[in-house]
Every structure is written in C-alpha cells, then in structure tokens.
C-alpha cells in the first residue's frame, strides 16, 4: 500500500491543471493517474484550434493547450502514472489501479481529485431503429480514427446530432475528401457552439436539418443508408416526411455523459441532471477529501472553464490537507425557471475562497435576450442581462461573498425578455 497526499484520477486538462495548481500551492506529493499512454485526455485528438482563448488569449489546438500543462506539470515535479487504470475507489480514499509494469497498485490517498472526463452517448441510449451494421460510430471514435490512427471511418457520411464533436468532424471529414451529406438535429436549434455551426457547416455548404432525426439504419453488413424524417413538437417522427439518404457511415454526436463509474462505487452523491457529483464552492463532493472538476463534474464546452474549475479543486484539496476535514453547514443553490442546472449545488458562504464564487449554469432553451436573477430569501441580490442564451453555451457568473452573506438559500432563474425565439441561428 502506497500513501499519497493527493491523487488525481485522469490526466486530461482537468487533471493536469489541478496537478499544476496543487504543486504551486506547495503540495509536495501529487500523483496523476491516466489509463492512456499519453497525458492530455480528449485534447490529444482535438487537432482543430479554438482552445485557450480565455486563459492564454491565443487560439491553440487541443494538443498545444495540453502540452502547456504537461510541460508545466513536469517542470513542477508532478508524478504522472500512465497506462494505468483505476479500478476501485472507496469512500475513505483507497484506490486500486493496474498496469503492466507494477501489476496491481494499492494506494491510500489523503485527498483525491476526480478528473475522469466523460464518454459519448451511443445509439442504444437514443434507440435508433434499424439494422446493426458496421459504419455506425460516435463522432469521438471517428475523430480518433482520423486524427490519431490515420484512417477514414467512411466516405459518404450522415451525422446525427449537432454537438460540437459532430460539427467539427463534419468539417474534418470534408477536408479529408469524404462527402458529408447532412447533419441531422432533433431539436429546433443546434447543440453546438455557434462558431462551430458557422465554421464547420455553413462555410462548407453542409446542410443542417433541424427538427429532424434518423428513423432507420439500412444495410446488413455495412451501412447502406439511413432514413431521416422531420419530428413534430413532441419530437415524434412524422413518417410522411421520411426519406432515404444514401451513405456508408452514420456518426453520432448526441451528447456526453460524465464518467462517474468510480464515483458511484464510493456512493458519492450524484446530481442526476449534470450526471456528475454534487459539489460545494470548493468543488468538494459529498465525501470529505474527494473533489471533482472538468467533464466528470459536468460537461464543458470550453476547456478554459475546465482549467479554472481544476484550479479551484486543487485549492480545495490544499485547504483540506492544511486544515483537515471540517464539517460545513451548507445552504442550497436552487435551479429555478429556464435553467437546467446550476453548479455548485450548495455552498458555505463563510468559507468562500477569495471572496467570490463562480457559478456555472445552462439554460433549457435558446433565448435572444434574457435576464438572469440571483435571489435569496430576501429577494433579488443580483441580476444581469444576457444576450443569445443557448443550451450549448455555458453561462458563468461571479457572485461575491458579500452579496450572499446571511442568506439561507441562493436561487438562480432566467427570464426571457421579448418574444420567444425558436431558432438559435
């Protein structure tokens, strides 16, 4: 059994940023464990630019963004254990991990940061009817084939779902000489960032079919085509509108799910809406000494936010190591009208670091203009006007401790201003 100060599970941008910050804060023994043979997480396969705009004021590629943190981590003496899969985690922070060199490794950690990232939703999760031939891939798997392995998963492609990975793959595959027939989206708006819709579809004349879905997959051995149809307001396909689209590949970009299998093992409290742990202002989970950040906590669209969050988790861990477990009284953070979730889900106002809390939230639908209200039992404590609110783009707002002090409850709600918009772009 090894004894460790801080073990970070996952060596993506979340885990690496947390490790760097932890070393800067003076934690000597920082171990990052990742199951892949290289650190960097999902960024290794994101060779497009657009990373780091907030943090570095630069447009970096995924590998470049990751590299900055990998180098920093190495310089600061972070230990990174690669090709190693964590199989077990207990509530009292004991871990079991395996690799080929050391076999089975048992570790007792004083603090743990969960940074396992997320996985993609699959065909099963959305129940697409039809045959089960080769040629149905998630967009992320296709991205790995193209960008890391150097293979094309298909030549004539339909993409279901307009999440960012799907949009980016539409452009990438087009540049590689494949024909992307269309991107099919069941919602009346895209699920990706506007800049990706413009730069990946519009610039290449790839049609985005909103309020449409795939209702059948054809082909016994390999995909031969799909049937797509319009959906009505209840998202039920209107079969009269069904038409066949010939293709050899269907890519799915239908959402990400935080990878919390290890967290569930510990019986950590999970928020069924975010799919990640319930956390407080220090990103501490319901289990003392276990923190979470990045996509394992909730799905992010910008890596810069991931890094910010990881820094906070590292500070939480450092405080925990310095002062030990302290029982906090938390007040609830309530998700009100028009919001899907708000994070953190609870706070202790007195223990707020640096006098302010960064709240992250997502709207339930697009709005051209909206007013965000933050309320306590005393009434509105803060409000802000937001333009072009979209479910795909996370809203972030800082609230200072002084604004919240004395409250028993903090509630966020979004109110639409003006007429309702159906189409976000």
């Amino acid at each position: 059994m090894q004894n460790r100060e801080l073990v970070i599970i996952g060596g993506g941008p979340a885990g690496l940023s947390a490790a760097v910050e932890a070393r800067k804060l003076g934690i000597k023994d920082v171990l990052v464990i990742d199951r892949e043979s290289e650190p960097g997480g999902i960024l290794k396969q994101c060779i497009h630019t657009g990373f780091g705009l907030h943090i570095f004021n630069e447009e970096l590629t995924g590998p470049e963004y990751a590299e900055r943190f990998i180098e920093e981590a190495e310089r600061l003496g972070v230990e990174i254990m690669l090709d190693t899969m964590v199989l077990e985690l207990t509530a009292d922070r004991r871990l079991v991990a395996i690799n080929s060199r050391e076999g089975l490794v048992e570790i007792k950690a004083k603090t743990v940061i969960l940074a396992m990232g997320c996985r993609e939703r699959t065909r099963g999760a959305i129940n697409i009817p039809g045959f089960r031939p080769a040629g149905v891939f998630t967009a992320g798997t296709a991205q790995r084939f193209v960008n890391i392995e150097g293979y094309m998963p298909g030549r004539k492609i339909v993409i279901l779902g307009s999440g960012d990975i799907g949009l980016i793959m539409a452009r990438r595959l087009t540049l590689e000489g494949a024909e992307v027939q269309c991107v099919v989206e069941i919602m009346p708006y895209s699920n990706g960032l506007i800049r990706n819709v413009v730069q990946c579809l519009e610039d290449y004349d790839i049609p985005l079919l909103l309020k449409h879905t795939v209702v059948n997959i054809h082909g016994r051995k390999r995909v031969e085509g799909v049937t797509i149809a319009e959906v009505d307001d209840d998202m039920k396909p209107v079969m009269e509108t069904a038409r066949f689209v010939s293709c050899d590949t269907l890519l799915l970009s239908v959402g990400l799910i935080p990878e919390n299998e290890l967290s569930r093992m510990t019986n950590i409290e999970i928020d069924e809406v975010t799919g990640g742990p319930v956390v407080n202002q220090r990103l501490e989970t319901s289990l003392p000494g276990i923190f979470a950040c990045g996509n394992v906590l909730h799905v992010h669209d910008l890596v810069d936010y991931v890094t910010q969050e990881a820094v906070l988790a590292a500070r939480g861990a450092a405080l925990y190591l310095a002062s030990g477990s302290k029982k906090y009284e938390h007040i609830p953070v309530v998700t009100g009208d028009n919001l899907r979730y708000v994070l953190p889900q609870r706070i202790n106002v007195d223990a707020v670091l640096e006098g302010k809390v960064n709240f992250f939230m997502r709207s339930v639908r697009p709005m051209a203009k909206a007013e965000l209200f933050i309320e306590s039992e005393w009434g509105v404590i803060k409000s802000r006007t937001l333009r072009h609110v979209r479910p795909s783009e996370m809203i972030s707002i800082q609230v200072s401790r002084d604004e919240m002090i004395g409250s028993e409850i903090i509630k966020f709600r979004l109110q639409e201003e003006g007429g309702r918009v159906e189409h976000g772009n």
Partner: protein
Amino acid sequence: MIDVAIVGGGVVGCMIARKLSRYQLKVVLVEKEDDVASGTSKANSAVIHAGYDAKPGTLKAKLNVQGNPLYDEICRELDVPFKRIGSLVVALNEEEVNVLEELMERGKNNGVPNLEIINREKLLEMEPNITSESRAALYAPTAGIICPYELTIALAENACLNGVDIKLNSPVIGIRAESGGGLSVETPGEIIHTRYVINAAGLFADEISRMAGAEDYSITPRKGEYLIFDRRFGDIVNRVIFPSPTKISKGILVCPTVDGNFFIGPNSNDVREKDDVSVTLQGIEEIVRGARKLIPRLPLMHVIASFAGLRAVSNTNDFVIGASKKVRGFINIGGIQSPGLSAAPAITEMVVDILKEEGLELKEKSNYNPGRPQINKFRLFNNEEKKELIRRDPVYGRVVCRCETVTEGEIIDAIRRPLGARSLDAVKRRTRAGMGRCQGGFCSPRVMAILARELGIDPLEVTKCGSGSEMLKGRTKEFIETGGVKSAK
C-alpha cells in the same frame, strides 16, 4: 470420407458436434457466417425454461423438460455461467390467475418439478420492483439463465479441441445423394463427401432440406425485439419475470442476464425476410409497454443496446426432427423455435439415437476432453488473483474495454483460442469488450489494432462480422487524391 457433416453452427449444431466428438468419427461442421452463434443462438431470451409452457405431447414439451436438467453438467464441464434463478409468471387479474392454474396443470403433465403458485405478498417480497397490481404468480424454481452465445462458442471450442473440423465462412449451396451411397455437401470452396448430413441450419433448415431433396416443410421467421440496460440496474429483478401467456406467445419478459445486466422483450411479429433482424420504432414501443405492465418504473434512460432475433417457426408449429424418409443419411432438425435453447441437450440425445438407428456406429474415444482451455475473466477475479495474473502475464495489466474491464490479455486469448475470433463481434462475444455502456466507442479502435496485429492483417481488413462489414473505408488523404477537396468559402 467424412462420417457426419453438420450444417449450421448454432447452439443445436455445436452441441451435436461436441457430442459426436467423443466418438471415433470424422465430423465436419459448416457455418455460413464468420463465427458460430451468428444466427438465432446469439439473440434470444437466454432462458433455460422449466417446461410448463409447451403443449403436452409435443416434441417441444418433451425435449424442454428433458433438456433442462442436463444443463448443470454441460456448464460445469465447459465453465459456462448458468444460474438457476427460477421464473415467475405473474397474474394481474382473476382471469390470469386461472391461466396460472392451467399452466401449473400443464407443467405437471409435462413433468416439471416443484411448481408452485405463490400469493401477492410472497411475490412482492421476492420481487420488490414488480407492479403492485399483481395478484399471484407461478413459480418455477428450475428455470435458469445462461449466455447463449458463450455457451455455443464453448461447445464449438470443445468440439474443435476434440477434432471436429469447423469450417466458417462456408455456406452450403448444394447437397446431393451420391450414387455409391453417402451425400456430397457443396460450399463455394469445396465438396464434402459424407455418410450423414445433419441439417441444423436454423431459419434456413427448410431450404437445406429442399436442396437435398428431402422432406418439404416451411419455416417462417418471427421476430422478437429486445432492449438491454446498463449493468447498474441489473438487480431490478431477481428472477425471470413473465406476464401471463397469451395464445401466441410467452409475452414480453423482464429478465436478468448472467453478466449482470437486464433486458426487456421480446415481442412477436412475423416478418418476410430471414435476415431481417432490424429493430423497429413500433417494436421498441411495444416491448416498453409490455414490460411496464410488470415493472412500472423502468430506467429507460439507461438502455445500452437494442437487438432482434428471429424464431424459426415451422408450419407444424413444433420441432421437426427425424431422419429423412426420402434421402438416406439426411437428418432434419428444423423449426427449432423457443424453447430450442432449453431443449438443445435433449435434441442432441435424440439425434444421436437417430444416427444409431440409421446405422452409425459410435465407439468412444479414449482421449475425449470434456472441457476447454480456461478463460481468465479479469473482471470477476479478486485483487489477489488479478495481481497474480498480471505477474504471470503483464498483458493482463492493460485494460482495453473500460466499461467491462476487459484486458488485452483476454483479447489476445480470444484470438488465439481454439476457433479463435476473427472479427470485432467475435471478440465481443468471447470477452464482452464493447458490450458495456459505451458500446465500443472507446475500445473498438484498440481491439481493431490488436486484431490486425495478431492476425497479421491490415487494419482496413478488420471487420465487424466477416467480409463486407469492414470497419474502415480508407486511409486519411486517400480520398483527397481520388475525390478532390472542398474548401471553405
């Protein structure tokens, strides 16, 4: 000259192959797909039925009840998981309670042991998630669950070890009686001369029979669709839960799997094509509706896959088993619909008797091995065992499929075993890599790389399930050279 040629590598064909491999015989099994268990035997309810369902006097009833108890020994010898968890038929109203009485009576007639009708309280105690509208249930403790493709593969591996020649990718395209006696079986690659042919071709048994000039019967495909759920919810039921049966089917069940998941299904609809295993929107709705009657709160957000299987329904609506009266040496095993899996061991015994009657001499081999090489199922090992396994062979320290914790060692083993895997699906059926909640999203590129390396083939040649199902379409840059690049406006 071959002694026996078996057509079809489903559970029936493979179990017969294994049985015959204990005798001094030359046996060949031909299968049209790239792996055994590629037909109905991979997509069914996986229940070893107790045997109260089938009409007394039918072959289905007799062979089900005879087959069920034989499973303990088969699974022990082959190290295949089999759990006798029992089944419950649930009655939701008075009328259905009467049906339970009838079923119990029928079961007793068929010879099913230990049947019992339990009341609502007992039922809710045994199955807390079951609908509060339930009245009573028929409890059959001898029913069990198994993994039907793992069983079929294990049978084939054992047959292979004991000298049966298993020819994959070999569709039978002609069968002829030869003038000097015996039969010739034609595949695209060769002609096999044999004394006996056993037709275990599942949905296609009628066509094989006709091809040989033997008895004429017809098989209609009847589809059953399923939804399978994330392992996290595997304990929603503890036993096989049936609704009260109707005239045409056993109904939509809620059932645990031996691997710890649970599934709902199947429905029952005749279809035109024998390879139509597509899942339909209506079908999914139908099974969800059906299953909700038993378990009102289903975690529908956590479905990981849907699939369909086809029952081979003969025009007699019973198994068609027997030596042909028209073609000497040709033996039919047709119409093996449910409970064909449960009945397979008894079907096997029956076929061996038929072969004896038809003049085949059965002499035991001295070196028959009833087992197969051990499989290291890493996820089921405890930490000490894991440690020891990785120490012995470091490739077991590398996890390839994260959802099911399948290691590289297991994948290499699946490829190198007797009747080794040649495609992604074949690896999946042997190891569970790709069967978890992410359905291969993470591991399929990794499994493909291992397959290519082990088989010495190009990654472009790696298939999902045999020729025509290649996973990749080309190398990057290749299409640009041939196709032309679209550039941004």
